[in-house]
């Protein structure tokens, strides 16, 4: 991992200079704010819309609903944002030639890839922490009755899933000089595993099950998906390994 420290420092600066942190935080904050607000004020908005001869009975909003709605949005839109942010991470450097400038120095490919993954993961983690604090605060303020620890554990599972999305995207980004190709393939892998996760027997091994686990925590269900948890961690490690192998074996 020679050269990791300067590469990581550069990647962190890049997250700020290229407004990646601002973009991810902005998107996550939007969901953090709108989930409790929508749930709380939707009945009143519908009342203001007037009686159009129909009567719609909305259930009284609960804190679990608000937090689950936030988690659902982050799980889906967050995955898309992860693909968009990470798809050019390596591909753009290969295309522009900055990868050659950096890798002609005594730095390992492993350090090059892992510094990128760690930095962009930190961007997502920081954004998630802030957005989840806002979401939790609004939920407690507007709806009340939110439990802290299930929500914290839900966020950790969400974060792991998003890091998986980033790692998969980065793997394809090291394979192709086109960031669009990398993003498209990563998205198809993420969507495919999401579909498979709904299939009995094999579904429990898919990283997408982490999102179900998180929702279970909010509803008080004991159902866990440890296989999915372990496989996600292994998949992240495998993505980093193969990404640096691809960079070693390919002509730049």
């Amino acid at each position, binding site marked *: 991992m*020679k*050269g990791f*420290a*300067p*590469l990581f*420092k*550069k990647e962190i*600066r*890049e997250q700020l*200079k*290229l407004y990646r942190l601002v973009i991810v935080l902005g998107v996550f904050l939007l969901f953090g704010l709108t989930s409790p607000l929508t749930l709380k004020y939707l009945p009143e908005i519908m009342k203001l819309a007037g009686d159009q001869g129909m009567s719609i009975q909305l259930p009284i909003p609960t804190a679990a609903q608000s937090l689950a709605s936030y988690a659902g949005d982050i799980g889906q839109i967050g995955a898309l944002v992860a693909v968009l942010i990470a798809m050019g991470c390596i591909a753009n450097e290969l295309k*522009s*030639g*900055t990868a*050659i*400038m*950096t*890798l*002609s*120095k*005594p*730095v*390992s*490919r492993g350090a090059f890839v892992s510094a990128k993954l760690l930095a962009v993961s930190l961007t997502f983690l920081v954004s998630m922490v802030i957005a989840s604090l806002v979401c939790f605060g609004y939920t407690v303020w507007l709806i009340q009755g939110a439990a802290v620890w299930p929500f914290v554990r839900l966020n950790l599972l969400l974060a792991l899933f998003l890091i998986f999305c980033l790692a998969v995207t980065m793997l394809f980004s090291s394979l192709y000089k086109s960031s669009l190709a990398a993003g498209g393939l990563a998205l198809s892998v993420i969507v495919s595993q999401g579909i498979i996760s709904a299939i009995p027997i094999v579904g429990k091994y898919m990283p997408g099950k982490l999102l179900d686990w998180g929702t279970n925590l909010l509803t008080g269900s004991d159902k866990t998906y440890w296989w999915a948890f372990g496989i996600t961690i292994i998949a992240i490690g495998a993505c980093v390994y193969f990404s640096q192998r691809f960079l*070693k*074996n390919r*002509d*730049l």
Partner: protein
Amino acid sequence: MTAIRTQGLSKYYGTVKALDNLNLEVPENAVFGFLGPNGAGKTTTVKLLTGFAHPTAGEAWVAGGKVGEVNLALQSKIGLLPDVPAFYDWMSGREFLHFVGELHGLEQNEIKKRTEELLELVELKKAGNRRTGGYSRGMRQRLGIAQALINRPKVLFLDEPTSALDPLGHREVLNLVLRLRENTTIFMSSHNLSDIERVCDMVGIVNKGQLITVSTVEALQKKYARSIFELEFMEDATPFVESLKNIPWLAEPAIITGNGAPMVRLRAVDIDRARKELPRIISESGLTLTRYELTLPSIEDIFVEIMTSGDKQ
């Protein structure tokens, strides 16, 4: 000592032979010019020698280390200026050099010192705090050279180092190469013939992936010497040129009218005899001689001759 050695180095892309069986030895502290037209295999060779392309066959050694799968020890001994140097646009030139110094594991004090030295050397001190995204092509080329030098490399690879430079920048880069030759072996690829002639001790000519010839610049000039004499007179030399046509050891005498004064150009079939007897014949002609020169071919002349004849050593 040999700084660069290759043995049967080849790179094929399908049926296209980008480089075929390159056998080359470059001595330490030489400035080696790798000359060839576009698409000849110059950049492929640089990429193979710096480990950024994998050879189809053959081996290479640079600065005593074998070029192979990511050799970090070797990378700390080399410097590379790619054909199109690229930078992180959001970084300033100074920040980029600092970053490169850190990648080489230099101490912070050393990095600061080297950064300022190199910015001075490539005349980017004033623009050092500007973002590289706003640099001109020439400035990017000069910053590219600076970053390749930060670790005081034993072997420096310059791929088309003057390609994007204006005449002044062009001259500065060549002067820089001349200054660096004392401590560094320089492998410089170019299709600019005058650059190679000006700074290189040795030259290799490559075409269609094959090394055509490798030699010192002087030896190449001697080998391809065409024994051309150029003479200038104060008077009209037409009758004199007519008289030369009857001499069997001279050929193609003609009056050339270029931008300057008319001159007589002729080729010696027997160079030794021409050297001895031509001054006497001129003296007997009664003309007033103002210039007498036995010209050596330029690298450009040799290059064109090799490319057109397909000569292979």
